[in-house]
Structure formats: structure tokens, C-alpha cells
């Protein structure tokens, strides 16, 4: 049975229309994964000695911060780990019981990279502990306890897929706790560290995470099994429709037709709503850089990187996938009397307006100095003038259909931001960084800003040229795109 499921997975990967793109991205992701594994392994092997050098008891110190490790893992998974998608409906009537379907789906998540990458940290660390005379029984129970917690995260994440609000609250709560600890007001780890330390000192404690894991696994199993009905988990959720006229958009003339439609698209579909949420998250990303909280992110170059990033959240999350957002009704668009230029300009305006709004929301970063604000404004200009065209150009080649109503699948993949998006976004940030570096180290920061801003303004001048290019691609790729959008995975 498993063999058959695996066979289906295999075929769905190799027979998908965007196979080549997928393959390239998989290879890139593979390198990324290798890098992650290597850094985890180095950390696992080295952290003991680093802590020992600083006169800290290594295991105790690690245990103190284990809480944040586990929480961060959960949040990390929420954003990046994809839920297994099996086309479930056709399976329901097959002559095997539903438990098998659920078991396979859950089993697939268990094999995910997001689980076993932690082994690259825990195994070397445990080995070092053992070689330094730590109690072998304790180290082993600690090790298994930790892996059980990691796996528990895996199954919690399965539930979380639908609960964005919960994740936000959870994330904010722990950011708050981290802040309180950093400034010495309240230290949550005082209460949690004994548990992690207990995994080592009292081997019986390790039974607890294992029990929790089993409970979680059982709950996830029950939860999905119950939802395998056409009118339960597999049902489409029906919302009461609201009619909006949005007459205020009429000032955009002919563009308003598309703008209105795009705004409805974003507001009324789960996948696209996530782009708004992610854009807001991107706004906060700057804190990592501008506060100098992270050692490697110090320095003027990273400031430019962050500026492009915080103002470009919507640009990267939405613009990247034009015209895929319209994939569900692409044949309609292709047979209606639509001028490509108007269609593109509407999307472009949307991206530019959103970038503008993000920039205004970023003004509080002034707190970290005028240079930060200048970087943000310059980054915004670059995003509007240059990257806005680049994302639309890139989007023309991405032929992955977007299933707007992803409620159809019980294990639906609702996050619009994934590793793929990130990979395509990176080059768009390296450009301004490079320009800034050139300016910064020749004539100083102001010149660096000027260079980036100039590139952005120059981008505006080429707008129509780029649009013509994109339209050409749309036209030559039309049949291929139509064909690719027919696929629903």
C-alpha cells in the first residue's frame, strides 16, 4: 500500500508542468539544506567547548535556552515546512481504510527535513557530552527527550496550518518574553530549564515528552481522520459574500477595473490574504538589523539589505506571482478584450502603492538614526522603480498555478511564502547592496544612498520598455502558460 502512495508522489513530482523549475529549485534547496546541516553539526560539535571556555556549564546553559530553541523551531516550521498534499478525494472510495491515508500523510511529515536536521545538532552535541564523562544514561534520555519534543513540534505544526492568529500571538508572546529576559525584568527560563536539565538528571522525566509525542500523534491522527468527509475537512468553506463597489478607485480610469478586481482577489482568498500578513511581518524584520541585535547583521551593507526587505514585503510576496494569481481563470483573461498593458499596469500600481504604504509604516525606524530612515526611503525608491519591474518580469516565467481556494484539500498548503519565494527574491536584494557598497566605500554613505536611489529612478524611465518585454513574454509563452495552469498542483 505504502508503495502505491509513494508511486503516486513520485509521479506527481515528475509529471508536473513546472517540473523543470521545481527541479532547479529542489537542487538549490538541497544546497541550502546541506548548509543548514553543516552549520548545525558545527554548532553541535563546537558549542560545548565555546561554553566551557566562557566558564559556563555547557549542558546547563544549553538547557536554559532550549525553550527558545523549541519555540523558534515551531515558528520556523510554520512558515517554511510544507504540509503534505495528497489528493485525498479519489482515495476515499478505494478499498482500504481511511487510517492508511492519514497514516501516510502524517508519516510523510515525519520524514521531513525539518525534523532530522536537528539530529545534526543533537547527535554531535551528545557525543561530545559522552566523551567528557557525562552520565551515558542521562545523555541518552536527554537526547531522546529532545528529539521527542522536536517531533511533537512537527505534529503541532500540522494543526497550526489553519491558525495564523494563534501563531502570531505565540510569536509575539515569546518575543516579549525574550525581551524581558534580555533586559533582566523576568526570566522565563528559570522555570523551564529544570525540565530540560531533568531529562538528563532524572531519566524518568524523559518519559514525559515521549508521552506528549504519542498524545500529539494520536490527536493529529484523530483530527484528520474525522475530517476525511466531503462535508467536514474536505468541504469548501462557504462565506457570506460582501459586495464592494470601491468607487474611490474610479479615478484610475480604465485601470480601476483591474485594480478593483485585484483588491477583491487579495481580500477574498486565503492564499492571497497571507501576502498581506507576510508583508506586515516583513516590516518587523528590520528590527533584527537596525538594532544591531544580531552580530553578523551589523554594518552599513546590511542596512541596505534590510531597507529593501522591509519595504518590499508585498512586492516579493505578491508581485512575484503575477500572473499566477489569475491562473484559475486565465482562459477567461485570454479571450476577453484585455490590453495586456492595462492588466500589467494595474498590478504594478498595486505593488507600488503597497510599497509606499510599507515605507510610511517604516518611519518609526527613524528612532535608530537618520541613516536608517534614509536607507528605507532609498530602498523604497529602488523597490518601486526597479524591483517592481523585475518581479513582474520574473513572474512571467513562473508557471505554477495558484489554487486560491486551497480549502479543497484537508492538508492544504496555505502559506504563500515559502523557500521558493525566498530564493527568487534574493537577487533583487543583492543589487542595491552592491551599489551601496560601491558608494559607501568610495565617497561615503550619502553617495551610496544616491547611487541606489538613482538606479531606482532610472528604473522608472524604463517602465514602458520593460512592460513591452513582459507583454512579449506573455504572448510567446501564452500557450505554455495556459497548459501549465490547467494542472492543479
Amino acid at each position, binding site marked *: 500500500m505504502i508503495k502505491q502512495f509513494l508511486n503516486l508522489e513520485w509521479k506527481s513530482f515528475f509529471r508536473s508542468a513546472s517540473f523543470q523549475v521545481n527541479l532547479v529549485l529542489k537542487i538549490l534547496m538541497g544546497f541550502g539544506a546541506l548548509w543548514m546541516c553543516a552549520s548545525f553539526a558545527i554548532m553541535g560539535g563546537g558549542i560545548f567547548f565555546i561554553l566551557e571556555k566562557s566558564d559556563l556549564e555547557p549542558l546547563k546553559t544549553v538547557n536554559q535556552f532550549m525553550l527558545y530553541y523549541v519555540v523558534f523551531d515551531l515558528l520556523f516550521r510554520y512558515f517554511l515546512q510544507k504540509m503534505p498534499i495528497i489528493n485525498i478525494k479519489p482515495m476515499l472510495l478505494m478499498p482500504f481504510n481511511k487510517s492508511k491515508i492519514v497514516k501516510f500523510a502524517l508519516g510523510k511529515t515525519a520524514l521531513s527535513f525539518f525534523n532530522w536536521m536537528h539530529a545534526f545538532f543533537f547527535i554531535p552535541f551528545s557525543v561530545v557530552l559522552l566523551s567528557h564523562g557525562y552520565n551515558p544514561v542521562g545523555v541518552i534520555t536527554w537526547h531522546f527527550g529532545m528529539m521527542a519534543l522536536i517531533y511533537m513540534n512537527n505534529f503541532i505544526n500540522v494543526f497550526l496550518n489553519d491558525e495564523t492568529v494563534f501563531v502570531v500571538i505565540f510569536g509575539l508572546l515569546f518575543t516579549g518574553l525574550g525581551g524581558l529576559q534580555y533586559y533582566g525584568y523576568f526570566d522565563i527560563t528559570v522555570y523551564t530549564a529544570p525540565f530540560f536539565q531533568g531529562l538528563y538528571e532524572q531519566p524518568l522525566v524523559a518519559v514525559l515528552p515521549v508521552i506528549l509525542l504519542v498524545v500529539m500523534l494520536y490527536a493529529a491522527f484523530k483530527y484528520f481522520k474525522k475530517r476525511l468527509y466531503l462535508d467536514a475537512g474536505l468541504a469548501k468553506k462557504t*462565506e*457570506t*459574500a460582501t459586495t464592494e463597489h470601491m468607487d474611490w478607485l474610479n479615478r484610475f480610469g480604465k485601470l480601476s477595473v483591474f485594480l478593483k*478586481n485585484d483588491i477583491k482577489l487579495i481580500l477574498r482568498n486565503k492564499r492571497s490574504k497571507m501576502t498581506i500578513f507576510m508583508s506586515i511581518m516583513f516590516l518587523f524584520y528590520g528590527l533584527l538589523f537596525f538594532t544591531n541585535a544580531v552580530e553578523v547583521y551589523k554594518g552599513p551593507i546590511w542596512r541596505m539589505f534590510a531597507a529593501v526587505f522591509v519595504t518590499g514585503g508585498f512586492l516579493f510576496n505578491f508581485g512575484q506571482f503575477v500572473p499566477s494569481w489569475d491562473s484559475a481563470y*486565465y482562459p477567461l483573461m485570454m479571450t476577453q478584450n484585455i490590453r495586456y498593458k492595462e492588466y500589467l499596469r494595474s498590478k504594478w500600481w498595486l505593488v507600488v502603492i503597497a510599497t509606499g504604504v510599507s515605507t510610511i509604516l517604516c518611519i518609526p525606524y527613524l528612532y535608530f538614526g537618520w541613516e536608517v530612515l534614509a536607507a528605507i526611503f532609498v530602498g523604497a525608491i529602488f523597490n518601486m522603480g526597479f524591483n517592481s519591474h523585475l518581479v513582474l518580469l520574473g513572474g512571467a516565467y513562473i508557471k505554477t498555478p495558484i489554487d486560491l481556494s486551497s480549502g479543497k484539500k484537508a492538508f492544504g498548503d496555505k502559506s504563500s511564502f515559502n523557500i521558493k519565494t525566498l530564493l527568487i527574491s534574493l537577487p533583487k536584494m543583492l543589487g542595491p547592496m552592491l551599489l551601496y557598497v560601491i558608494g559607501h566605500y568610495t565617497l561615503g554613505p550619502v553617495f551610496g544612498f544616491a547611487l541606489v536611489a538613482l538606479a531606482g529612478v532610472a528604473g522608472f524611465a524604463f517602465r514602458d520598455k520593460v512592460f513591452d518585454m513582459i507583454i512579449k513574454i506573455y504572448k510567446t509563452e501564452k*500557450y505554455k502558460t495556459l497548459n501549465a495552469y490547467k494542472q492543479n498542483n
Partner: protein
Amino acid sequence: MIDIYNLSKSYNGVSVLNLERVEIPKGQSFGLVGNNGAGKTTLFSSLLDLIQPTTGYIKNGGYKVNESEEWKTHTASFIDETFLIGYLTPEEYFYFIGDLRGQNKADVDGLLSGFEDFFNDEILGKRKYLRDLSKGNQKKVGIVATLIGNPDVIILDEPFANLDPTTQIRLKGIIKELATNKDVTVLVSSHDLQHVTEVCERIVVLEKGEQVKDIMTSPETLKELENYFSGTIV
């Protein structure tokens, strides 16, 4: 109005459509009949420039469909649900299509008021998005949307499928009325021989991509078609 020249389409060397010359004059109501795989949808898709023919070309209103986009201004079509925008309400969808075809809200409302019977009170003002309507109701929306803006050419793929009997009869009424209008060319494909003979002046039968019959509809046509199809099946 529509001229097909040496049109053929093959996938990996297997021919699925091969038409030497078909001419559809302005104002004709044209029916396309054939079993599954006969090439009906392939023909309509190439007519709408959604797929690329292997050889030959189609002219719609004098414009080659794969070279000019001018034909889009006078052609309306409904092939399947990919012609609907799921997250819009039916009203919003009609207005959107209206906007694209240069019709203001009042024009669209005027047109819709004529279809109250057809909608059977299940479409308008129901506060539902198109994606949440039943297949049949979605089809009704798609078909009525093709009438917005008085197009010269209307293309409907399997319009009768998925509709309840009452709606099928009403739809026949609508298509017949279009057929009497000598400015509108209607192209309909169907598996239902009776419906298609009732509404179309001319019927073309396709089999494995080849044209096997081209009939001007007469009282005997239904019998002729039934004989033909029972012959091919046995």
C-alpha cells in the same frame, strides 16, 4: 464570419483535429456534434486561440486569431469554469465583464433583468461567491455573461450539460432567439442531438477530428443523426 483553413492539431504525431475548410457565415447558428474525443473542444479552443494549431489557421471576422487580437472585441465565449472568477459574486462578475466590453452598470442591469426566469432566483442577490454556487448555476452565470455587450460571435461548449430540465428548455429559448438575430453567429457544441437539432440551422458532425457530416437542419436531421451515431456505436 468564421473561416477555417487547413486546420489540424496533433499531439505527438496523433492527429486529433483535421479540417480542410469550414466556413461559417454571419448570423448562422452552428452546431457541433461528436462523441468524446471527436475534437469539439479542441476546435473551440483553437478558435479562441487558447491552443496553437499544428497547421492552418482560423479567421474570425477577417482577423487571424493567432495574429491579431481584434477578434476579442466581438467574440464572447464560455467553455468551462475557468471562464469564471470564483471570488466574485455573480453581479460583480457581470459588471467586470461589462467593464471589459464597454458596458456600464445600467446596461448590464438592463440585460440581466431579462434573465430573471432563467436564473430562477438562485443567482442574483444571494450573497454568494461564484465558487460556492452549484455547477449548474455557475454555468448559467457563464452563459449569460457571454451575452453582455452584444457580441457578434458567441461560442458555447456543451451549454446543456449539467443543467436541470427547466433550464435546458429556457436555454434553448435563449439560443433560438439569438439564432433569429441575423447579426449574431452562435456556435454550440453538444452531446444532446435533440437539443442541437432544435436550436441550430446547421450541424457539423466530427469523428476523430475529421468532419464526417455537414447538414442544414431539416425535420429529418434528428433521425439522420440518430442513425449515424447508433451505427458508429454498434
